[in-house]
């Protein structure tokens, strides 16, 4: 038997939750970024899966959205990491627990 849409969704949900876990339970800022990226990847996986399992009459919308979301995720990652570096320069730490004030 071939994998159904459900299974893909379950996988992506798992991936999403792992990302959520990383984002929620790790202190290091980079972990949060990693988690967010993973969640985005899960979302993309969903898009592709839905596109694949839908009747093929219409445009590859899922693929398009996946592409765009990847691009945006790349931008987000770049800016996020830059922010991590800047924050580190300023506070000498990347532990998000200590980064709870707006003014430096």
């Amino acid at each position, binding site marked *: 038997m071939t994998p159904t849409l459900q299974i893909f969704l379950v996988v992506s949900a798992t991936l999403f939750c792992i990302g959520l876990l990383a*984002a929620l339970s790790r202190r290091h800022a980079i972990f949060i970024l990693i988690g967010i990226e993973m969640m985005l*990847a899960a979302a993309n996986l969903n898009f*592709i899966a839905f596109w*694949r399992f839908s009747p093929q009459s219409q445009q590859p919308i899922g*693929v398009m959205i996946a592409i765009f979301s990847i*691009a945006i995720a790349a931008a987000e990652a770049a800016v996020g990491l830059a922010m991590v570096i800047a924050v*580190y320069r300023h506070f000498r730490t990347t532990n998000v627990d200590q980064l709870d004030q707006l003014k430096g």
Partner: protein
Amino acid sequence: MSTAAFVVIAILTLAAAVAAATLQKLMHAALSFAVAFVGVAAFFFLLGAEFVGLVLVFVYIGAVAVLIVFTILLTRRDLGKDRSFNWSGVVVAIAVFGGLVWAIFKTQMLSVAAPQIQPLTVKRIGAVLMTDYVWPLQCVGLLLTAALIGALILVMEEKNSKS
């Protein structure tokens, strides 16, 4: 698409993801993150979206992962081991997972098999990108430029910095 491939890829991906989320050494986490993305890309291949898969690999392994390891390098000062673990987050994550899975299995219409399709060629994607999605494309380009400049300004060595 074969179940075997699916199972292998799923196991690889999820294992890598878990590793990325839980490993204590940042560097290992980042690398397993890359592996996890390879897995996701493999999923895309499996689903017949080679282009997206390649883009994913290209962007994430080639760019984002390297950026991440670079950041780890530059913020090496408190790199050490990140042992502090927030269990409430785990609880929340598990709860969300449960909810999602419950919702997925509750809806019957999802258990469909993949229809037979003609492969999605790069040509078609390019055509669609340049016709229907040209405005989103331009916007994304603008966004990327802005992000590039913004990131540059953020990490630019500010003159007479206090530190």
